[in-house]
């Protein structure tokens, strides 16, 4: 083995990077962006909002309420039990707890039975609510003379105790997988079109920029639709991911996500000169969307500045739509689903216009 030859290779590699400042910048900026985002998200996320309706005439309801208010696992507010379901539906609460009028009476006879109502469609928000309640009940029961049984009556607005982690993440993952794979294929293919010189040839032909973008969009979308069917069938038939909605509606949302990915790939390829640079876009484009779109953490629990960012990411709306359909059984009469689908469709139009507008600039 020759040290000089190895050194020549190493030197050649670093010399190449020295002239490719964009890649170097992405190489060092991307990890900071991703880790910074993750740190901010983890450390600054808010806890689930829980409403408490204390109808108990006795002291124990008040004692448990007071213990819940002190809990760091949840944030509490006082509500009327009749408003609870509406607040779960509009997303302002992750859960609400009702202490019925005979709560203290039953507690004295050895049974503590609060009513817990969980929204149920967001992963991970049920656990802190039940944990906080458990701690509050234990603290309230510590002064009780005899043995006490905890029998919380848990009701789910959507989903239920039978849903596992895959059911929660599966709905979001269907959209994410299609989005990710289609984006990567498109950005690299479109860049190839430029690097092999065929884009220059196309631009010297009577083809309009919009025609190039649309031609690409249709071609990749056809491929993406086949992939979407495959992903959907696999999730529903093989993995048995929970679904309460219309399969064609899920497919439609998947297809919209695929079209977003195609057009985002075309648009961003204008800002990369090499495939290497294009690949660097993946962590910068995909990872923040993965972290912020509500796949892992509910958007409502994110720090406020990140919620603003989440609100401009198309994946946020797609994930929300997928969960609405698959976990809540939503259809197109639901205003929230109409908004989600409308926003994703709007993003597609925006990206087509942006892709067409930047095409000439980068070829000239």
């Amino acid at each position, binding site marked *: 083995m020759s040290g000089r030859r190895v050194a020549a290779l190493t030197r050649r590699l670093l010399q190449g990077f020295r002239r490719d400042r964009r890649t170097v910048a992405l190489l060092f900026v991307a990890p900071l962006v991703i880790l910074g985002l993750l740190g901010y998200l983890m450390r600054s996320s808010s806890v689930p909002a829980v409403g408490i309706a204390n109808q108990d005439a006795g002291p124990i309801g008040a004692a448990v309420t007071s213990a819940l208010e002190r809990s760091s696992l949840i944030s509490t507010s006082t509500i009327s039990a009749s408003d609870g379901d509406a607040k779960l539906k509009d997303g302002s609460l992750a859960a609400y707890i009702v202490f019925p009028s005979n709560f203290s009476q039953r507690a004295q006879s050895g049974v503590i039975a609060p009513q817990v109502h969980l929204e149920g469609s967001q992963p991970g928000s049920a656990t802190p609510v039940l944990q906080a309640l458990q701690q509050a009940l234990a603290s309230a029961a510590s002064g009780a003379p005899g043995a006490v049984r905890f029998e919380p009556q848990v009701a789910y607005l959507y989903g239920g105790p039978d849903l596992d982690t895959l059911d929660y993440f599966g709905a979001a993952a269907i959209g994410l997988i299609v989005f990710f794979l289609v984006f990567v294929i498109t950005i690299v293919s479109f860049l190839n079109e430029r690097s092999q010189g065929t884009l*220059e*040839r196309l631009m*010297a032909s009577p083809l309009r920029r919009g025609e190039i973008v649309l031609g690409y969009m249709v071609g990749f979308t056809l491929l993406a639709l086949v992939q979407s069917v495959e992903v959907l069938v696999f999730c529903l038939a093989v993995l048995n991911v929970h679904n309460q909605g219309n399969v064609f509606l899920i497919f439609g949302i998947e297809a919209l996500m695929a079209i977003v990915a195609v057009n985002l790939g075309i648009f961003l390829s204008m800002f990369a000169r090499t495939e290497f640079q294009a690949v660097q876009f993946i962590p910068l484009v995909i990872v923040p969307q993965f972290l912020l779109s509500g796949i892992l953490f509910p958007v409502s629990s994110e720090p406020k500045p990140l919620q603003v960012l989440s609100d401009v990411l198309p994946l946020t709306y797609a994930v929300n739509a997928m969960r609405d359909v698959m976990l809540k059984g939503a259809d197109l009469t639901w205003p929230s689903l109409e908004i989600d689908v409308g926003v994703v469709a709007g993003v597609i139009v925006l990206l087509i216009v942006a892709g067409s507008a930047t095409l000439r600039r980068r070829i*000239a």
Partner: protein
Amino acid sequence: MERFMSETYAVEVDSVTKSFGQLRALDGVTLKVRQGEIYGLLGPNGAGKTTLIRAIVGLVAPGSGSVTVLGRRLPNLDVLRHVGYMTQQAALYPGLSVEENVKFFAAIYGVEGGVKEALEFVDLYNRRSSVVATISGGMKQRCSLACALVHRPQLLLLDEPTVGVDPQLRVQFWESFRRMAASGVTIIVSSHVMDEAERCQRLGLIQYGRLLAEGSPSEVRARAGTQNLEDAFLALAGEKES
């Protein structure tokens, strides 16, 4: 396909400048190419030949000056239907066959047919099913040429078209270019090969983005007082620099 009305000049380049950052790629170039003429752009690498061809095909917007092609001032998308462009790099889809590439460009220009003729013209009809990624560099150049002329353009821009083409085929190419020109097709060809320059009806010698001299090969030689074009080019380039 509708053909544009006959114009005296197929291409008129008027005082065109183009800079890329500090580099002045075209520095006030003015030239006119007649219809049915084979016009050679001759100059060393980096002289500005490719930039000039890209300006004529609308891929480069001049900083100043104007370009008129087939009577239409650029930018004009419609005129591009009558222009064929062969890039220096054999710009083809490597995953498609030779025939599929030519058919694709025929479709882009909105023509049906002509694929067989184009492939025969470049002597690739027998290799039409070969995947482009598997053929030689010379064959790729030929396929690229077929793509440029499949729609029977009125103006054909060829950026160093015979790089990697064997001498026998190169002779055939030039024979065909002459036939095309005789039928009214205007051909602008860039080259730094002096032997090819001799085959052009008129030449433009270009260096540092400026047109040093223009005329038939014999006129250029006479003006420089030399026996061959290579010496003429060197003499004229030296004259301008001094």
